[in-house]
C-alpha cells in the first residue's frame, strides 16, 4: 500500500463509510419510531451515542498506540496515537454539542454541571491539552515519549466519563444496563447501524490522517537533508 495518496483500500473504505452513513441517516430519521414523550428531538440520540462511542474508542486506540510506542519506539505508533486523538476530539465535540442541543428542549438547559457533563468537560480539556503540549515540545523523540505517557495517563478520564452516570446521581439517562437496553427493537437497530457507520467513518478518517502525518514526515526529512 502507498504510504500516502489514494490507495484502493482507502477508496473502498471511504465508499463504505459514506454508504453506511446514508443508511444510518435513513434509520435514524425514518426507520426508528418517534419517541412518545420527547418527539422528534429524541432522534439526536442515535448520532449523539454513536459519536460518543467513536470518541471513546478513538481515545482507547490512542492508549493502545501509546503503549506500543513506548514498547517499540516506532514512529508509526506515535502517528496513530496523535491521529486518533484529533479524530476522537472532533467526535467528542460533536457528542457534546448534540447533547447540549438535546438537553435544551428536554432538560430546559443547555448545560448543567452534573457528573456526566462535568467528566466530559474534563476529558475534552485533557485531550485538547495533549494536542497543545505536542506543539510546545520541539525534540521529536521527547515529544513522542511525553505524548505516549500523557496518552496513557489521560485515558483514565474515559472510563470515569463512561461510568459517571452509574456511579453518581445524575439526570443523564442510562441506556445500557446490565439487564439489557432501554430501547424498542427498531430503536436499537437504528442505534447499532449508527454506531457501525460512525465506526467506519472513524477508520476512514484515521487512514487519511495517518497518511497526512507520513507525508509531513517525508517533507520534514527532505527539508532536513537539503538544509545539511
Amino acid at each position, binding site marked *: 500500500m502507498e504510504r500516502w495518496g489514494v490507495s484502493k483500500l482507502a477508496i473502498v473504505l471511504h465508499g463504505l463509510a459514506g454508504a453506511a452513513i446514508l443508511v444510518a441517516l435513513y434509520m435514524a430519521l425514518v426507520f426508528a419510531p418517534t419517541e412518545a414523550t420527547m418527539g*422528534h*428531538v429524541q*432522534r*439526536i440520540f442515535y*448520532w*449523539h451515542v454513536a*459519536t460518543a462511542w467513536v470518541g471513546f474508542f478513538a481515545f482507547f486506540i490512542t492508549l493502545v498506540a501509546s503503549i506500543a510506542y513506548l514498547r517499540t519506539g516506532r514512529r508509526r505508533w506515535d502517528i496513530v496515537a496523535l491521529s486518533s486523538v*484529533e*479524530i476522537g476530539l*472532533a467526535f467528542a*465535540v*460533536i457528542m457534546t*454539542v*448534540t447533547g447540549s*442541543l*438535546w438537553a*435544551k*428542549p428536554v432538560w430546559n438547559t443547555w448545560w448543567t454541571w452534573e457528573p456526566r457533563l462535568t467528566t466530559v468537560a474534563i476529558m475534552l480539556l485533557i485531550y485538547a491539552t495533549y494536542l497543545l503540549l505536542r506543539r510546545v515540545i520541539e525534540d521529536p523523540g521527547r515529544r513522542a515519549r511525553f505524548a505516549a505517557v500523557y496518552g496513557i495517563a489521560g485515558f483514565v478520564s474515559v472510563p470515569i466519563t463512561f461510568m459517571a452516570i452509574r456511579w453518581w446521581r445524575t439526570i443523564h439517562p442510562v441506556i445500557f444496563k446490565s439487564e439489557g437496553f432501554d430501547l424498542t427493537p427498531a430503536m436499537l437497530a437504528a442505534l447499532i447501524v449508527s454506531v457501525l457507520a460512525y465506526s467506519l*467513518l472513524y477508520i476512514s*478518517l484515521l487512514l*487519511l*490522517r495517518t497518511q*497526512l502525518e507520513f*507525508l*509531513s514526515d*517525508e*517533507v520534514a526529512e*527532505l*527539508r532536513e*537533508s*537539503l538544509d545539511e
Partner: protein
Amino acid sequence: MTYLVAAYAVMWLITFIFVLSMAIRQRHLAAELEALKERLQETKRYGE
C-alpha cells in the same frame, strides 16, 4: 424539530471542517514536497 435540525447541522459542519482542514494541510504538504524535490534536483545538477 429546530433542535434536531441544529444538531444535524452542527454534526456535519464539524465533520466537514475537520475533513477540509486535512485536505488543506495535505495540499500544502504536497506543494512543499514538490518544491523540495525540485530544489533537490537543482542541487544535484549544480553539484554535477
